[in-house]
């Protein structure tokens, strides 16, 4: 049990949280980080405009950023874990300087490296990702631990005129893995084709 759960702080179910973020996704473009957020997205339903990372730890937010700049008419959502975000923390400073209005970053924070055996992450010791986001200039940064706030954030994904950041407190459990394709070339080409671009 995580330190936060032991302290009785509320946490959400990760699969439910992903389902809420994506239930009215419309033409939202999704990038997920290495590890459990990739499985969560696959469990919510595979989609040609999901780009799942199976490596490149620390890269999810910047992939979402480059995509958001390239596709200013589309909304881009990055969902990644606390460990993945911590490895690429500088990306929040880079994104905080640029602040693309169509980019949202949601970090599923269980305070654990679930993939490697549930070792505690820095967030479990009190590092605030929401605080980092805000300090980097992302003013719309939310600390979410209940369903009402999550649903409100999910609505804002489609209409906000500014970069959004959310740290979403989730339970430290491991639901059965749902594994999408690990073929990076396939994932890239189908994503581009779904946007009307050439494969390759």
């Amino acid at each position: 049990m995580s330190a936060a759960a032991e302290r009785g702080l509320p946490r959400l179910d990760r699969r439910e949280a992903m389902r809420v973020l994506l239930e009215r996704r419309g033409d939202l473009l999704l990038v997920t980080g290495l590890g459990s957020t990739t499985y969560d997205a696959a469990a919510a339903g595979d989609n040609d405009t999901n780009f799942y990372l199976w490596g490149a730890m620390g890269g999810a937010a910047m992939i979402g950023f480059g995509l958001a700049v390239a596709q200013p008419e589309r909304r881009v959502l990055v969902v990644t874990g606390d460990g993945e975000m911590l490895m690429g923390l500088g990306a929040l400073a880079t994104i905080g300087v640029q602040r693309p209005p169509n980019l949202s970053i949601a970090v599923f924070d269980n305070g654990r490296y679930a993939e490697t055996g549930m070792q505690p992450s820095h967030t479990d010791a009190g590092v605030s990702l929401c605080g980092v986001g805000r300090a980097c200039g992302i003013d719309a940064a939310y600390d979410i631990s209940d369903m009402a706030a999550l649903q409100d954030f999910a609505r804002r994904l489609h209409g906000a005129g500014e970069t959004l950041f959310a740290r979403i407190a989730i339970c430290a459990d491991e639901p059965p893995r749902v594994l999408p394709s690990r073929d990076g070339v396939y994932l890239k080409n189908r994503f581009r084709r779904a946007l009307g671009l050439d494969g390759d």
Partner: protein
Amino acid sequence: MSERSPHAAAADWREQIFIALKAAEIRQVGYVPDAGHSRLIELCQDDPEVRAIPLTSEEEGIALAAGAWLGGQRAALLMQSSGVGNCINMLSLAKACRFPLLLLVTMRGEWAEFNPWQVAMGTKTQAALELMDVLVYRVEQPEEAAETVAAALDIAFNGSLAAAVLLSQRLIGAKRWVK
């Protein structure tokens, strides 16, 4: 910081590189501030068609370029040789997904270097890139710069491959430490 270049008469090779980037429809340029790239960075910042994006670390740029390509734009990355070392694991993204990638690398630690700390990475930059299957081209003379960059752009974006152009320290001019 001033520079002394042996090729002062051909100082516009940086502008020629910019023209090559524009001709290849590069729309996002990620960079870590660098003296050798400073003119090219200014040209990118001043061009309304190019989004110049300062990075905290070079590896962010590998992910940036992947995202740009997913969304139908072309990106290029500007970095110093030391920054190549920061990219190694993230280059697996380009390799696993065959993302096109162009790195323009200003070299340190190889010619009249004052700071021995730059030598460790500077002398291993090409080998490190080649270990990750990045194609490497070197520019020693200013007149080679534009065509080498254009050739690297071609192979990167036509072949969905990662390519790097190393701009030698002799070309750029060694950093002057004592004024």
